[in-house]
């Protein structure tokens, strides 16, 4: 007898996921080597949205950059410009008025909620498919997000690329009737966010799909540079808003939710709890917003370009995805000599290569979704 066909080693079945795939959250390509349903090894390819922002920033001057950078992490655009203007203000030693700082934080926190809502919604699509319960969750999240975008439109005139942060202050002041609108938003969103948290944390199928899936240990999370909900989901209580407060975060009272196991479930719950904390911060902002100027520099007919002194500086903020930092090397001109964006999604996504091997194919999308990458941020 010849060797029977079942005993032959057929090798792995290589399956390409992406760059166009419903659940790669953008343009990401994974090559899965499957043995049955199990993943033996993976290769990952990125750079499908590499737009050369770091090169572009060597051509534009400091005042032109915030709107360009807002296109980077397109789920929370304000975080990008907030980090950048803070980094520049740190080199130039510019003081920002308290009112401006409050407005910045207000917009950033509202966008954190909207970003986490998109993360939950698209996670629903990963788990439930576009033709099922996942789509319902997705649409509920987008329905609530529209309410936040309405406030954004009211404050700044655009839906999410708000372009509100400028070096030295903010571009738009908050109108008196906006306050009541935001109050209404808070009272609308609070029960709904609670509902959604209950909806997923009491769902047996959701727990079956996410508990003990994609477990990231504390050590791995730190060494690979993971930050944000990834780090906090693994039980490390680290949030730049609390640990190294920037803007006016030290004036607010809020908690840092953490998980225990570091699995996909914990990361999702941490995001949901963060939403509630952000809503608390928004509440405190509109209760205590001080009067005053919104810009430290007087408007001139021909505004002066920002010229930081020679040197380098690094400044990081807590974006919805984690530590978003800007490392700026200035040679004394009005154009950055070199700007490095420390993208949270890039470091978080690198965990994929450690987490996927050994899991099921169906888990691969669950793990990828729980890392919540934004490819404008990964590829820059």
């Amino acid at each position, binding site marked *: 007898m010849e060797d029977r066909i079942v005993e032959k080693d057929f090798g792995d079945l290589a399956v390409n996921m992406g760059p166009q795939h419903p659940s790669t959250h953008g343009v990401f390509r994974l090559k899965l080597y499957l043995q049955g349903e199990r993943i033996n090894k993976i290769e990952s390819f990125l750079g499908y949205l590499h737009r050369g922002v770091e090169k572009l920033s060597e051509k534009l001057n400091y005042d032109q950059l915030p709107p360009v950078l807002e296109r980077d992490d397109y789920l929370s655009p304000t975080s990008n410009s907030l980090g950048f203007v803070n980094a520049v203000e740190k080199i130039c030693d510019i003081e920002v008025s308290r009112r401006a700082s409050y407005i910045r934080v207000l917009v950033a926190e509202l966008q954190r909620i909207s970003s986490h809502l998109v993360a939950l919604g698209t996670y629903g699509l990963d788990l*439930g498919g576009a033709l099922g319960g996942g789509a319902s969750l997705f*649409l509920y999240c987008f329905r609530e997000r529209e309410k936040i975008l309405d406030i954004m439109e009211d404050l700044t005139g655009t839906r999410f690329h708000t372009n509100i942060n400028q070096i030295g202050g903010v571009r738009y002041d908050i109108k008196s009737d906006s306050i009541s609108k935001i109050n209404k938003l808070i009272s609308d969103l609070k029960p709904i966010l609670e509902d959604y948290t209950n909806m997923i944390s009491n769902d047996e199928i959701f727990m079956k799909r996410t508990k003990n899936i994609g477990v990231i240990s504390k050590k791995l999370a730190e060494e690979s540079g993971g930050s944000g909900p990834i780090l906090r989901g693994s039980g490390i209580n680290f949030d730049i808003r609390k640990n190294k407060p920037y803007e006016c975060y030290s004036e607010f009272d809020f908690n840092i939710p953490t998980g225990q196991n570091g699995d996909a479930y914990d990361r999702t719950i941490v995001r949901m709890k963060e939403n509630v904390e952000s809503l608390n911060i928004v509440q405190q902002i509109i209760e205590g917003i001080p009067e005053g100027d919104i810009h430290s520099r007087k408007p001139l007919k021909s505004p002066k370009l920002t010229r930081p002194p020679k040197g380098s500086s690094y400044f990081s903020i807590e974006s919805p995805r984690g530590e978003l930092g800007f490392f700026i090397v200035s040679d004394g001109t009005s154009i950055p000599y070199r700007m490095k964006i420390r993208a949270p999604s890039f470091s978080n996504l690198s965990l994929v290569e450690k987490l996927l091997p050994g899991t099921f194919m169906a888990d691969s999308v669950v793990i990828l979704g729980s890392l919540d990458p934004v490819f404008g941020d990964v590829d820059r």
Partner: protein
Amino acid sequence: MFNSFIEFALPIFKTISILILIVAYLVWLERKVAAKMQSRVGPYSVGYPHGWLQPLADALKLMTKDDSIPKNSDSLLFNLGPVWIMVVSLASFALLPFYFNNPMLNVDLSFMLFIAISSLIIIGIFISGWSSNNKYALISVLRMTAQIISYEIPLVISLLIPCILIGSLSFGEIIRYQEDTWIIFYPLLGQLSFIIFFISALAEGNRIPFDLSEAESELISGYTTEYSGIKFALFYLAEYVHLFGICVLGSIIFFGGSNGPFFSSNILIVIKALLFFTLILFIRWSFFRIRIDQLLKFNWVKLIPLSFAGLLLACLLKYYMDFSSL
């Protein structure tokens, strides 16, 4: 000769055209119900009111779309797949007393024959996925085969429980038996077998939470990934025909078929099937999907032992009742 041909073909033609019409509007109903659940409007602008021409537009568009056959695929099997599925799912309706007073094919073992025919559908799915020369389609049909073959067991057994209680395998008998009380109201066994039937029907009809073969989030669109145009339309239609067949089966076996509280008519079968279908829709648009190993484990560890226990109970009950009546 011509007359006999007409006699033979007319009921088939009637059934198929009514069925296709119902199924086309099932798709519309599904989109409307989903939209309602997701606080949307759903199809609206194609045909006033509420987009009632939408199924027609979809069908016509799919007819005019290009037909693509992937390179290196087995084109014979690739073309046979959708036709097979459509034919099989339509053929099973020959046995159901669904619109006319009598089923087209009146045999004593009509229930068994129905199950036998409708399980042939997996062959069509398998050949279409295998011949697509697409890895997603291949993984999808391998999952689908495992799923359907394992869920066939609890499905059949859960349907056997009422059959044993009634003592017949013919749909006519089953309906006649339920003139007074429906099987669903039969203490314990009725509800147990209905729950098992419902779960396995979801898996059989490839609905969420068991729609692993069409899991868009992993497998693009499963075994239909490479199909376009009219062949895709056949798949789409056959899926709903098959599901509607299961709904009709459920309404006959558990909900009394044509028997109603106020009047008895075969139209009641359709109405009950539609209600049953809506129930499946509610499930579909509110659940996530489970994983293949969890799905199979649930079946072999929980569902099958439970259904066998139910079957044993039904046999004992029947034996006891028959014995005592002697």
